[in-house]
C-alpha cells in the first residue's frame, strides 16, 4: 500500500469520522424515529439547520472568500426551492412514484436537488456576468434588486402558484409540492438531508482549498495585484458566484423538502424570519468571513437562538421588557452580532478551519502561547 502523507491521513481520518457519525445518525433515527420530540422537534430542526448550513457556507464563498457583498442569496434559494418542488410535482403527476416511497422516489429526490442547483447556477451566471463588473455598494444594490425581482417573477408565473404546473395560476403561494415531507417522511429521509449537506459542504471546502480558493482570496485582498499576477479576475469572480448560486439552489431543494407549501414571501428581503438574505449575511459575518467551519457553526447557532426565543419555555419566566424585545427577533440577532463583533471582530472563527488532524498540534501551540504570554506579563510586573 502506498504510504499516505499527513494530508492524506487527514482526509482518511475525516472520511472515517464522517461515515461513523452518519451511521450513528442512522442508528439513532432507527431507534427513536417513531415518536415524541425526536420526530416532532429535533428532526424538523435538523432539516432546517441543514439548508441553513449550506446556504451560509455558499454565501461565504462570495462574501468571505471572494469579498463581494451579495444581498440576494435567498433569491437563488427561491429558484432552487421552486425548481425542486415543481419538478417533483411533475414526476408525481406523471405517476413515477406514489406516496413518497420506493427507489424511484429517491432517484427523483436527488434529481430534483441536482436540477435545483443547476437552474440556480444558470441564473447565477446570467446575473453574475453583468453584476460582477460592479463592486461594493453597487453590487450590493444589484443583488438586492435581484432578490426582489426573482420573487416578483415567481409570483407572476402561472405554473408557480396555487396547485402548480398546468393547474396553477399566478399567485404568491404554491400549495402542491412533490417533495414536501411530513414529520414521518422527514425522519425517514433524514439521511438524505444529511448526505446532501455533507457532500455540499465538502465540495465547497475542496473548492476553497485549491487553486480556486487561492485565486479568489487573492482577488479579495487586492484585485489589481491579482490581475497583475495573471489571475483572470472576472472569470474567477463569475465562477465563484455561479458555484455559490448552485449550492444556494441545493439548499432551496432541501427547503422544499422540509415545507409542503412554498410561499414567495418567505424568501423576500422583508421577511422577518430566519430566511432572509441579510440574515444569511449575519450568519456568515458571525461565523467568520473566510471560514466554512464558521458558517456551518453560525448557521446552527443562529437557528438555535431563533428557535429558542420563539419557542423556548424559559422565555415566559423572563421580565416583560425582555419578552417584548423577543417579539422582534431581528433586534436579538443585532445584539448577538454586536457582541460578537466587539469581542471577536473577525467573527467566531475568523478564517480558521476546523481540522481533526491539526487539532492536537494547535491546542498545544495555543497552550504554549498562553503560557508564554503569562510568563511575559509576570516578568513585566516584577520589572515594573
Amino acid at each position, binding site marked *: 500500500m502506498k504510504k499516505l502523507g499527513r494530508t492524506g491521513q487527514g482526509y482518511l481520518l475525516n472520511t472515517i469520522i464522517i461515515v461513523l457519525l452518519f451511521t450513528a445518525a442512522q442508528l439513532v433515527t432507527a431507534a427513536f424515529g417513531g415518536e415524541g420530540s425526536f420526530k416532532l422537534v429535533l428532526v424538523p430542526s435538523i432539516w432546517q439547520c441543514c439548508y441553513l448550513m449550506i446556504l451560509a457556507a455558499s454565501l461565504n464563498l462570495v462574501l468571505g472568500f471572494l469579498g463581494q457583498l451579495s444581498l440576494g442569496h435567498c433569491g437563488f434559494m427561491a429558484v432552487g426551492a421552486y425548481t425542486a418542488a415543481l419538478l417533483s410535482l411533475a414526476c408525481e403527476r406523471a405517476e413515477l412514484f406514489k406516496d413518497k416511497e420506493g427507489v424511484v422516489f429517491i432517484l427523483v429526490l436527488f434529481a430534483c436537488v441536482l436540477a435545483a442547483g443547476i437552474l440556480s447556477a444558470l441564473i447565477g451566471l446570467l446575473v453574475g456576468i453583468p453584476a460582477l463588473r460592479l463592486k461594493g455598494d453597487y453590487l450590493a444594490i444589484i443583488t438586492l434588486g435581484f432578490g426582489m425581482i426573482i420573487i416578483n417573477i415567481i409570483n407572476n408565473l402561472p405554473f408557480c402558484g396555487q396547485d402548480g404546473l398546468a393547474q396553477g395560476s399566478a399567485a404568491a403561494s404554491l400549495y402542491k409540492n412533490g417533495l414536501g415531507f411530513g414529520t414521518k417522511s422527514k425522519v425517514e429521509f433524514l439521511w438524505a438531508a444529511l448526505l446532501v449537506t455533507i457532500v455540499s459542504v465538502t465540495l465547497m471546502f475542496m*473548492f476553497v482549498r485549491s487553486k480556486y480558493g487561492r485565486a479568489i482570496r487573492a482577488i479579495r485582498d487586492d484585485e489589481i495585484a491579482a490581475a497583475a499576477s495573471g489571475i483572470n479576475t472576472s472569470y474567477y469572480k463569475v465562477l465563484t458566484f455561479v458555484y455559490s448560486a448552485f449550492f444556494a439552489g441545493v439548499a432551496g431543494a432541501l427547503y422544499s423538502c422540509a415545507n409542503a407549501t412554498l410561499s414567495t414571501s418567505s424568501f423576500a428581503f422583508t421577511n422577518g424570519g430566519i430566511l432572509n438574505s441579510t440574515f444569511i449575511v449575519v450568519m456568515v459575518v458571525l461565523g467568520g468571513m473566510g471560514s466554512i467551519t464558521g458558517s456551518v457553526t453560525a448557521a446552527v447557532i443562529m437557528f438555535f437562538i431563533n428557535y429558542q426565543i420563539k419557542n423556548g419555555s424559559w422565555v415566559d419566566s423572563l421580565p416583560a421588557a425582555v419578552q417584548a424585545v423577543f417579539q422582534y427577533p431581528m433586534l436579538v440577532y443585532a445584539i448577538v452580532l454586536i457582541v460578537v463583533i466587539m469581542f471577536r471582530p473577525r467573527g467566531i472563527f475568523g478564517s480558521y478551519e476546523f481540522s481533526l488532524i491539526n487539532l492536537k498540534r494547535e491546542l498545544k501551540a495555543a497552550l504554549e502561547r498562553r503560557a508564554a504570554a503569562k510568563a511575559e506579563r509576570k516578568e513585566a510586573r516584577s520589572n515594573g
Partner: protein
Amino acid sequence: MAEKTPALETRKLGISFGGLKAVNDFNIKIYPGELVGLIGPNGAGKTTVFNLLTGVYAPTEGTVILDGQPLNGKKTYQFVAAGVARTFQNIRLFRNMTVIENVKAAFTKDVDYNLFHASFRTKKFWETEKKLTDKAMELLDICGLADKADVLASSLPYGRQRKLEIARALATDMKLLLLDEPAAGMNPTETAELLECINTIRKRFGVAILLIEHDMSLVMNICQRIQVIDYGQTIASGLPEEIAANPRVIAAYLGE
C-alpha cells in the same frame, strides 16, 4: 543582418487623459537579460508607462510588442500570460494569505487541473499541488523568504514584503519584469540585499528587467542603459555615464 527579438518593444506609445498627454511617443527596446532603468522627476509619467506596459491602461496611441507579439487591446491577465510581470510602488500583497500562498496564487494561470480534480482530490490534484509547493519554495529561497513561508504576508517587515512581491512576480514565469521603485523606503542594508536578489534573478532566469528608481546610486550602479522621461516625453536615453552628464537631465532634475 538577423537581430535578436527584443523582449519588449514599444512603438510611439502614448496615452492622454482628457486633454493631458501623460505619456507621449514613448519608444523603448529591451533585450533578454538586459537591465534598463527608467527615471524622471516626480509626476513624469513613469508609473503610467508601467500601467501601459501591463494593460492596466489601454494606450491611446502606439503599441506594446512583447517578444515580437503585439498586445493591443489585451487585458492585464493576458499581458501576464504573454510574459510581463510587475511589482508595485506601494506594496500590493495578498495581505491575508500566507507568504507561500501569495506565490502559489500567482501560479494559478499555469495550473491545469479543473474543478473536477479539485472536488474529488484526484491524483493529478495532489501531484500538481506538490509541484507548486516545491516551485514556490524554490522562488522563496531565491528571495530569502523560505523561513517565513507560513506566516501571513502582512506580518512581514517592509523590506521582505518588497521581496515577496518580487517572488510573486517571478512565479508568473515572465520574460519581462517591471520593478516600480523596489528600493523605496529601504535602508542601505536592505537595498544591498535587494540588489543581490535582482542580480540572482537576472542570472538565473535571463529575464529583461525595467526598473523605476529614485535612488540614483542604485540606478547608476546596476542599470546597463537608462531612459529619462519628463512630462511624458523621453528627454534622454543611453549609458549611465552619458545620462549623468546630460545637461537636459540635470536641468529636469534640478530646474533650469
